[in-house]
């Protein structure tokens, strides 16, 4: 049970692909309405962690709880119906559907809440302009915006955003990040995977750093020095695991 007010909790998670072991005993608790940023170098296991939480990947060991309920055995679509929605790496739009049809498919979980077509269009004007266009004919930034809008259509309790800014121009990333306050205002908890440390520290309530499949640092941006994070990020020194060390 989660008596700590965490909406999503991961305990002792071991996961990977086939013989490749990507996560080792990861513990993570996300509080209601929190914006948590997962940082770490390429291959640190950030995407694997999100995929395991969303159910796109079966973990080797460990448990995942949503609102205190063990959902480890539930399939991915059932987790989406309970409010865990992943924006996958690479956006993964449905290329033969229009933008609006992509959004409509996003409401497949049949969850009710503040998000519908109108609300998504208001939050993401970029998407509204392209609503009738085939989603294969969009720029990378437009695709990412549609992917976020599509996930919001599910009215998630926890939104898992994987590599939002990957391969996008800074000005486009800026516009995407401008939608974050609107998403949070709806009461949605957000877990964000981001490569850009500076941006992370600006928006996050809390930062968790992964290194080679293990949590090596966690804390509020205000409590973490830039050095402590970069050290944890690259594994230069050996910071105390799971604790924010005052520097």
């Amino acid at each position: 049970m989660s008596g700590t007010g965490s909406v999503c909790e991961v305990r002792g998670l071991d996961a990977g692909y086939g013989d490749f072991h990507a996560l080792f005993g990861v513990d993570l608790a996300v509080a209601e309405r929190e914006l948590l940023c997962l940082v770490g170098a390429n291959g640190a296991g950030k995407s694997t962690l999100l995929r395991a939480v969303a159910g796109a990947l079966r973990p080797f060991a460990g448990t995942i709880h949503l609102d205190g309920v063990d959902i480890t055995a539930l399939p991915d679509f059932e987790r989406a119906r309970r409010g865990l929605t992943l924006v996958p790496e690479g956006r993964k739009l449905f290329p033969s559907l229009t933008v609006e049809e992509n959004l409509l498919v996003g409401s497949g979980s049949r969850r009710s809440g503040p998000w519908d077509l109108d609300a998504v269009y208001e939050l993401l004007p970029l998407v509204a302009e392209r609503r009738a266009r085939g989603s294969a004919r969009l720029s990378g930034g437009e695709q990412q915006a549609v992917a976020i809008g599509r996930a919001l259509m599910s009215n998630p309790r926890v939104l898992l955003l994987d590599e939002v800014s990957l391969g996008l121009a800074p000005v486009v990333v800026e516009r995407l990040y401008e939608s974050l306050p609107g998403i949070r205002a709806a009461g949605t908890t957000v877990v964000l995977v981001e490569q850009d440390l500076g941006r992370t520290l600006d928006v996050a309530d809390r930062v968790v750093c992964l290194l080679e499949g293990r949590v090596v640092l966690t804390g509020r941006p205000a409590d973490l020095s830039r050095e402590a994070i970069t050290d944890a990020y690259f594994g230069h020194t050996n910071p105390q695991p799971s604790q924010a060390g005052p520097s």
Partner: protein
Amino acid sequence: MTLVNAIVQGVLAGGVFAVAAVGLSLLFGVMRVVNLAHGDLMILAGYLAVLTLQLTGLSTWASLLVVVPVMALVGYVVQRVLLERALKLGELAPLLVTFGLSVIIPNVLLELFSRDAQPLPIGSLATEGVGLTDGVSVGVFPVLTLVIAVVVLVGMQLFLGRTRTGRFMRAAADDSATLRLMGVDSRRIYALAAAIAFATLALAGVLYGMRSGGVSPFDGQLLVLFAFETVIIGGLGSLWGTLVGGVVLGVAQAVGGQISPELPLLVGHLVFLAILVVRPNGLLGQRVAL
């Protein structure tokens, strides 16, 4: 005038080919299953109609009200019980499952009904026709099949384009793993697609039986070939392409028949091969998705 007549009859024959091809196209488009048992399932539906006639005394047309829903249910179950497991094993496994079905079905029918054709009578409709000009007359039944084909295609287009489940099917054709992340059970969408595919092939099977007066156990082996040729000629994944493909195949066979009674099949195959060489994506096909 005989050539014009042959072309008109060929166009009308395209209706049954088109209805037969829709289900094949849907199964491949949504879940990449190549259904080698397509023709045998059509004939199975024909035999179900025969059975319905014998047991209830319904007319052949009325038997569709029984056969189509029953075959839709069969499709749902075949997907959930056989193909779903096979799909997890790789691309070859579903092919082997449908190949197995294509061997089992005609042999079971042979055992139960003998090799003799079983009649699917449509009464005077079989011979009724309207003379358009001197030497060209169209049969009422062939015209009906073409109308049915258009209705089926319009219905499919509206279903795939306008309904929630239809959108899920197109999304599943693109990327079923991502569809699941949206809270949609892709296995259920697959099974519904199979149900629709089996319903349309059942309709096509009974129409074929009506046109040729009856069904016999091994008719399916040619029908599956026609269905594949129709899909490829029209363009894989293109709904209206199946009608175009059906018409082209029908005309090719009819014109071939004018030259010599032994030629219809050969000319049909040659036209199919020629289109495969010149336009590998088919006449209306642009992409391999619905």
